[in-house]
């Protein structure tokens, strides 16, 4: 007899990202990314670092098409983003989990309903409108909540949770997608230091236990060094460093930041 495992088993293979001369220019003329080229291999855990305004969010949002690229070539999984149509873009996003600095939960509804947002790409519009999610989708949501240790909060209102718990719900929402890639934009910038470490630990486990590719924007040096294996440094929209964490010394960070490293650049603890 086969013993049932409580974790969702990863059957889908993780995705890679390939950028060639990607430029992002916003409508107001600001050029957020200047001819960026980089490759992220399947199953990697990458930290993107840089000062505020260096283009970290623009980089991570271009990967799931929330920010359209102005020129260049961007390949994610099997999708070519510069030519992807609306339907293709939704299918792409369905395979990519995203975690935000501000958690981005629907505050007035239950934790379960928030996690089920992760099933939208796999649910018909009619089912969504009626709120009639399939039992199998609800099962996936319960398992995702269990994985981040807050299954006990499943029926609570999202707004009644603490910041750390809300970010866990957001991680469960991403996991509920059964993603091949997880993008996290400053996931711990709104959290206190101990909670920040717990959430970063969750992300690392997603990468190590499930083998999912994880790309995280961070501005704190010690977090970038302790979680993940590779650091990409952005400065004024350009990649100024790309290498394994061991090679990212303090002098490398002062190069990325364009100034000497300060105490505010580390979380401590």
């Amino acid at each position, binding site marked *: 007899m086969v013993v049932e495992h409580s974790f969702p088993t990863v059957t889908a293979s993780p995705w890679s990202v390939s950028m060639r001369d990607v430029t992002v220019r916003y409508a107001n003329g600001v050029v957020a990314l200047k001819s960026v080229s980089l490759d992220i291999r399947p199953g990697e855990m990458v930290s993107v670092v840089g000062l505020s305004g260096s283009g970290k969010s623009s980089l991570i949002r271009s990967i*799931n098409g*929330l920010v359209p690229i102005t020129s260049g070539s961007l390949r994610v999984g099997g999708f070519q983003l510069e030519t992807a149509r609306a339907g293709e873009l*939704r*299918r*792409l*996003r*369905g*395979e*990519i*989990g*995203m975690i*935000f600095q*501000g*958690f*981005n*939960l*629907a*505050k*007035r*509804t239950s934790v379960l*309903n928030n996690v*089920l*947002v*992760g099933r*939208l*790409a796999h*649910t018909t*519009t009619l089912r*969504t*409108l009626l*709120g009639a999610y399939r039992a199998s989708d609800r099962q996936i949501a319960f398992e995702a909540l269990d994985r981040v240790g807050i299954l006990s909060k499943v029926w609570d209102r999202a707004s009644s949770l603490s910041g750390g718990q809300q970010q866990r719900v*957001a991680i469960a*929402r991403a996991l509920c*997608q059964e993603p091949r890639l997880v993008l996290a934009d400053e996931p711990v910038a709104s959290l206190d230091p101990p909670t920040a470490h717990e959430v970063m630990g969750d992300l690392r486990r997603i990468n190590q236990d499930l083998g999912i590719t994880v790309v995280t924007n961070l501005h704190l040096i010690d977090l970038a060094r302790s979680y993940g294996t590779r650091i990409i440094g952005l400065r004024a929209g350009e990649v100024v460093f790309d290498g394994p964490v061991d090679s990212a010394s303090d002098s490398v960070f002062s190069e990325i930041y364009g*100034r000497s490293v300060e105490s505010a650049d580390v979380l401590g603890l």
Partner: protein
Amino acid sequence: MSATGSSVAGTTAGLDLPTRPGGRWKSWCAVGVVVIITAITLSPQWGIAFSLDAIARNWQNGAEKILQLLVPDWSFFPRTVPALVETLQMAVIATFVAAGVSLPLSLATARLTNPNGASRSIVRALLNVVRSIPDLLYAAILVAMVGVGALPGIIALVLFNVGIIVKMVSESIEANDPGALEAGRAAGGNQLQINRATALPDIMPSFINQTLYVLELNVRASSVLGLVGAGGLGLLIDAVRTFYRYDQLSLIILEILMVVMALDVLSNAVRRRLV
């Protein structure tokens, strides 16, 4: 803040200050427009005509009416019941229909829940037209079209309500945090799914609030609509008014007051459970 610290406090000379968009003349224009409109309103040629001496001339007449109003004719009550029930039915039915129609329209008129500019403008323009026509005018036109009775009243109330609910709810959508919707988009949902799963829960309290408010408005409005033949207490009000039965009129007003107060208690109870 800059590390080089080349700027001198109190001067803008060394600062690379970007030019202010629009400029200062915009706010002066706004002040000017308000002043001009006020002047026109008060001017003798184009302004509104009103005089206080009319009140002084007719006060005796008015005092008599007020005395009559103070003594309601209680025996009239049984005859008011069917009309009162009809008014309540009109108000409730119109509120339900209007709420059902308003919810999708609210989502269609807010930028966050309908990023498509063209369709948003069309729905907005239609609603502006709907809102600009007074409920009494709707009722008068509809009575001419479908005949005397509760139906034209209900349709008039629905049109009147949709204008109110959609405006208020779509404004509350715009004021909401767009974060949850962004998460829905990032998860691969289409706009309908995103609206249902991430926007709806957050706008529900505002939607229910507006619906309760409209129900209260409808009880009052539906008693006026009868004046033009659109059913309810208004028909009765018209009848007693033409016979100068102010004692009966005051009973009707008292009944409306009771209903409005009861609704107020009810909606407060509902609101308390919402927040």
